[in-house]
């Protein structure tokens, strides 16, 4: 019996000292915010990776010409005003804010904006595609920049919400004129070091462990209430929530769906919800003569009646209640409600009618129904696999048998790109907040820069012409009318089966105010204390 008591005494002593430690930790500075989310920024290079967590963190250090507000509108940031050139509709004019300094003390000038433009257009930039319409940038004077586009491009400014401005001299001095090039295989200074104009300066960074930011005293805007940001990625959902409950974290950005209701009832914790800019939908091969995985000799999805039947047999409200625990906005339109072109009428959906759906399938020439493989990701969207399972069950009631193939996103997305899937799940965000973005990538016949994620290979030459024309239409009323016409065809032909718009939940300690950002770009400079 000699070992046992000694062991427990030692353990108790250890835990006691740890307890006092934990107490001293919770008494942190009121202006420090400890922020956790599921993944870290991949790099600090502002033009390298077009990826959510990376841009979110960089918005604290670097700034953009225009800012996407929480309500979805664009507001001035480093550009005080912007307009299309009165004489040449293919030139955008940006007035650059005066008196802005980079963290190292250098002044922001139009030259820096031009340099950043060339850097973001570089071969190794992850944001290149957003600037495809832009040809060149020119500093007209110290605080005016002209960006020339290949034809009128009224939407171009909408693509600039993640276009960060870097200092030309700093980049040249540190040999980071271009973002990381993988083929060259060298270490890039900008991956670890920053020099922005943003409200916070980088203090320290340990990738995937901790990033500390402190207030930039020389920032041009109103001083934020948060003076220090400690950003820690916590990949495991259960641990992330536990860290909030134990008081080690003040704000959790990625709250798992299944924990939202419980956290709402937990004293001391506030949960806020808001729509995310991401629709979750299914699409299917409507063009091949025969399905790859089907058990029938033709392609049922090419028939309007079968597509009608599929849409008729989806119970979106049940998916919301059972799979998403209330955390979704069901709708028939694959477009977030705040984007241009969305209408309540097109987004409305009917209750499922399984009997009628089964009848339609039978009349379409499949008395015994038909089967095919449904491809689904299991690590990309909120509860993606569970959504697919629910849809499989619903379709089976209309005598449509889907065999679920659920796999990692790294295997799932190539199937869509290579047109190897008959029926697949996809989520799509619309960063420019305009329907054209959906049409360009999901509706236009694949080819060139169009239709890259039109995995069902829907093709309608009439629509293609209308979609291409949207890009250069400057008459907004005519443009919106054209958008409405295109949507009518897309919705009538039922080429996309939308399930819902994702809802984001942020959880935080009581006393903190932070609204959900539609792009999920939480910014600590907007935090206020009660």
């Amino acid at each position, binding site marked *: 019996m000699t070992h046992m008591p000694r062991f427990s005494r030692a353990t108790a002593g250890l835990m006691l000292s740890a307890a006092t430690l934990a107490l001293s930790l919770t008494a942190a500075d009121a202006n420090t915010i400890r922020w956790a989310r599921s993944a870290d920024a991949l*790099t600090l290079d502002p033009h390298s990776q*077009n990826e959510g967590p990376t841009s979110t963190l960089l918005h604290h250090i670097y700034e953009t010409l225009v800012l996407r507000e929480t309500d979805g509108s664009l507001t001035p940031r480093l550009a005080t005003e912007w307009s299309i050139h009165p004489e040449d509709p293919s030139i955008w004019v940006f007035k650059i804010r005066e008196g802005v300094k980079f963290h190292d003390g250098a002044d922001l000038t139009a030259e820096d904006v031009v340099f950043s433009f060339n850097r973001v257009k570089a071969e190794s930039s992850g944001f290149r595609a957003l600037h495809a319409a832009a040809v060149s940038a020119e500093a007209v004077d110290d605080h005016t920049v002209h960006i020339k586009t290949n034809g009128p491009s009224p939407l171009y400014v909408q693509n600039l919400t993640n276009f960060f401005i870097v200092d030309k001299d700093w980049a040249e001095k540190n040999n980071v004129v271009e973002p990381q090039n993988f083929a060259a295989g*060298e270490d890039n200074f900008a991956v670890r070091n920053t020099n922005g104009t943003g409200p916070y300066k980088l203090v320290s960074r340990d990738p995937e462990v901790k990033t500390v930011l402190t207030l930039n005293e020389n920032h041009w805007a109103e001083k934020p209430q948060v003076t220090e940001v400690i950003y820690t990625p916590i990949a495991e959902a259960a641990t992330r929530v*536990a860290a909030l409950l*134990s008081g080690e974290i003040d704000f959790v950005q990625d709250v798992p769906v299944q924990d939202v209701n419980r956290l709402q009832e937990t004293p001391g914790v506030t949960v806020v919800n808001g729509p995310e800019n991401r629709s979750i939908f299914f699409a299917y091969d409507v063009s091949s003569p025969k399905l790859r995985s089907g058990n029938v000799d033709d392609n049922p999805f090419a028939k309007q009646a079968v597509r009608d039947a599929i849409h008729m047999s989806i119970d979106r409200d049940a998916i919301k209640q059972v799979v998403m625990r209330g955390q979704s906005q069901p709708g028939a339109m694959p477009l977030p409600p705040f984007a241009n072109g969305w209408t309540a009428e097109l987004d409305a959906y009917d209750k499922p009618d399984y009997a009628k759906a089964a009848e339609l399938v039978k009349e379409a020439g499949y008395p015994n129904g038909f089967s095919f493989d449904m491809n689904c990701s299991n690590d990309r969207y909120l509860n993606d696999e569970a959504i697919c399972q629910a849809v499989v069950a619903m379709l089976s009631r209309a005598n449509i048998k889907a065999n679920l193939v659920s796999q*990692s996103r790294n*295997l799932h997305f190539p199937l869509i790109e290579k047109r190897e899937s008959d029926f697949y799940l996809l989520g799509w965000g619309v960063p420019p907040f305009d329907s054209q973005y959906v049409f360009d990538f999901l509706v236009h016949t694949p080819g060139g820069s169009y239709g890259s994620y039109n995995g069902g290979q829907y093709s309608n030459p009439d629509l293609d012409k209308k979609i291409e024309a949207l890009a250069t239409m400057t008459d907004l009323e005519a443009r919106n009318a054209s958008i409405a016409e295109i949507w009518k065809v897309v919705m009538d032909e039922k080429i996309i089966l939308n399930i819902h718009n994702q809802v984001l939940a942020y959880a935080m300690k009581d006393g903190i105010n932070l609204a959900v950002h539609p792009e999920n770009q939480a910014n600590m400079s907007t935090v206020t204390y009660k």
Partner: protein
Amino acid sequence: MLAYSLRRVLQSILVMLVVALISFALFRFVGDPVNSMVGQETSLADREALRRQLGLYDPFVVQFWNFITRAVQGDFGISYRLQEPVMKLILSRLPATLELALVSGTAAFILGVGFGVYTALNRRGLASNGIMTLSLIGVSLPTFLIGVLLIWVFAVELKWLPSFGRGDTVALTSWWTTGFLTPSGRASLVLPAVTLGLYQMTLIMRLVRAEMLEVLRTDYVKFARARGLSQRAIHFGHALKNTMVPVITVMGLQLGSIIAFSIITETVFQWPGIGSLFINSVKAVDVPVMAAYLMMIAAIFVIINLIVDILYYIVDPRLRLDGGGKH
């Protein structure tokens, strides 16, 4: 001796090459790294260009040869995901894993031997039966569950210990950071070390107990009793000493697996070691990091085995006759 060691080293290199070959063959089934590297607007043509640039379309043999020739020069390339040299990433993550492995391994060894001896000597005691029953939990509960339970009790309910991370660290060299020197670093070690070490402790305890019971029945222990030696001298001087040979062998191999398979523990506790680096790399199909990690784990096992083999050679004279080059 030299010929024997040389042959062992050559065999080890062969094993490493086979591991590299198998892991490279497997990477083709992990998926497409480019999807995690570019935004959704990127055109299919640009994606193709990036794949070509990364050499993903090169024949398997060419990719493998490029990897091996660069790896022997210590160059494992640039991480697709974090855009930093892979060697630098792994070196900066290694101390966290080694410290965790060291603490949990040491604790498992000391407690395992202690409990093992105790339960062997007091076979019918109430406490012994209690320990044996509890040890069943250690063997049967999954690591993930143990970790989450510990976080729930000690971090959320009692608020005694941190639920994630490594606390404050002190940099000893350019890449070696230690958590041993700060209070928060030591506190952060407790829960992950218990989670990782519980299974090892149970294993050692059961092994020591079984070996000890065996040894206590042998003739030399009976003779020692007959000579009137003290119980203490018999139990610890003779019996325990003779149980330790297999225990140390097992412990050596277990140390390798603690380092290699700390992935789950590191994920649950957001421990910034090589295990969590590996799992994040798998999610993003970061082939350079995955390849380097698997090579390193293979190297750890190969080196431990190499040392054990050479030690056997020194300890066991029979091997020397066999390896003398007579055939």
